[in-house]
């Protein structure tokens, strides 16, 4: 047994070095190797649960592998060790069954306490309905009668590699979700088409959005800031292109933002009545086209035939006779193809503008305008 002592000491030193390395990596959360602690009390609670369980696992590993390596070394064959030859030992078996059971129960108690908090969505100040779409998020502020789509904000030129990628490549949107700090926000999750998942690591929220079901979660954000996330349930071709951007702001900034949104809605409503010029329609149409259409039909209208037909020189879009079919396709989609209906997604001004744009861009020369009022009339006829 005299050789055991230096080995035991060596093993201990090794364990200490290993543990200090692991601890350094674990505490340095910005290293990217660990779970982020997040910015809410729940996310920080989840983080400490994760660390407690991590250290329990480390301790178990040290004990189990320590005993294993020590046995391998101390009772090696070259020292004349003889294997024991017995069949069973009920006491040892009961111990190695009961100890893990007790460890699991000990871990379940704090975890259950946190879970109960996570599911307590009562007494919320603000309710927001989050709806997943292929491939964008829709946010509805239930008490405010305000809703909007949140689309990928990264320009296509960055995706195609024609331009350098920005700092928040594929993690930026056109209309972020804006919420006030210090308020309890209840999220209701559902989907319009397939299963998506709304995942923002800093808020420790990752919820499936399922068509026909409502899932719930809540958060209170203390620190103002921008918190980013992604869809976490494979939902089709543009799964990676529907990020989440949550902006937590002071109550005053939030109120100002709400007012701004209301004004924009009012302007939009007024805009659907008046006559628009060609330039106005083309300008707005280009933006709408690049957000909603260019992923399939391409920014230059060349499409990806046969799945996504070219719009450039498309007979429907360069002749007077094709006009009605063109409007119909955008409003109601085309059954049997992946062309969706946009009547429920886009405002009448957006629809009129994008149709006008498609009829007059890339050398298409239909020359006609589609007015928002014309679209509202068609929709109210239904």
């Amino acid at each position: 047994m005299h050789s055991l002592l230096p080995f035991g000491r060596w093993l201990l030193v090794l364990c200490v070095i290993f543990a200090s390395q692991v601890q350094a990596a674990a505490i340095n959360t910005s290293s990217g190797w660990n779970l982020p602690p997040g910015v809410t009390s729940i996310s920080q609670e989840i983080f400490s649960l994760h660390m407690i369980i991590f250290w329990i696992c480390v301790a178990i590993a040290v004990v189990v592998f320590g005993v294993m390596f020590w046995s391998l070394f101390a009772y090696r064959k070259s020292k004349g060790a003889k294997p024991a030859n017995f069949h069973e030992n009920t006491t040892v078996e009961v111990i190695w069954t009961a100890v893990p059971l007790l460890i699991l129960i000990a871990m379940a108690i704090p975890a259950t306490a946190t879970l109960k908090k996570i599911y307590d969505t009562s007494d919320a100040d603000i309710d927001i309905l989050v709806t997943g779409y292929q491939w964008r998020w829709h946010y509805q502020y239930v008490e405010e009668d305000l809703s909007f789509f949140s689309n990928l904000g990264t320009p296509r030129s960055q995706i195609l590699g024609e331009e350098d990628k920005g700092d928040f490549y594929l993690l930026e949107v056109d209309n972020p979700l804006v919420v006030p700090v210090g308020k309890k926000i209840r999220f209701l999750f559902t989907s319009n088409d397939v299963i998506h998942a709304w995942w923002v690591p800093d808020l420790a929220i990752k919820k499936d959005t399922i068509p026909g079901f409502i899932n719930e979660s809540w958060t209170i954000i203390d620190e103002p800031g921008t918190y980013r996330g992604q869809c976490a349930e494979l939902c089709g071709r543009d799964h990676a292109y529907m990020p989440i951007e949550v902006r937590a702001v002071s109550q005053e900034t939030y109120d100002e933002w709400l007012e701004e949104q209301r004004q924009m809605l009012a302007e939009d409503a007024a805009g659907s009545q008046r006559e628009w010029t060609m330039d106005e329609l083309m300008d707005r149409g280009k933006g709408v086209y690049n957000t909603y259409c260019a992923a399939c039909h391409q920014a230059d209208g060349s499409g990806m035939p046969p799945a996504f037909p070219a719009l450039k020189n498309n007979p429907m879009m360069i002749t007077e006779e094709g006009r009605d079919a063109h409007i119909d396709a955008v409003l109601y989609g085309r059954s049997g193809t992946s062309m969706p209906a946009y009547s429920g997604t886009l405002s009448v001004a957006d629809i009129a503008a994008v149709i006008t744009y498609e009829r007059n861009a890339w050398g298409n020369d239909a020359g006609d305008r589609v007015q928002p009022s014309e679209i509202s009339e068609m929709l109210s006829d239904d």
Partner: protein
Amino acid sequence: MLQVIKSVLAAFLGVQSEKNRQQDFQSRSPWPFIVTGVVMTLVFVLVVASVARWAAS
């Protein structure tokens, strides 16, 4: 009877000594073990359910 309950508990845990196993297989009928097993499983489910209900309240 006590022997049957002990053996069912041992089966729940997954550990049984060879001596007890030999003794169990002396029994003529398997029915006491089956009935006790089913009853104790129901009791176990009820205990877990009420613990969960208590924890959630």
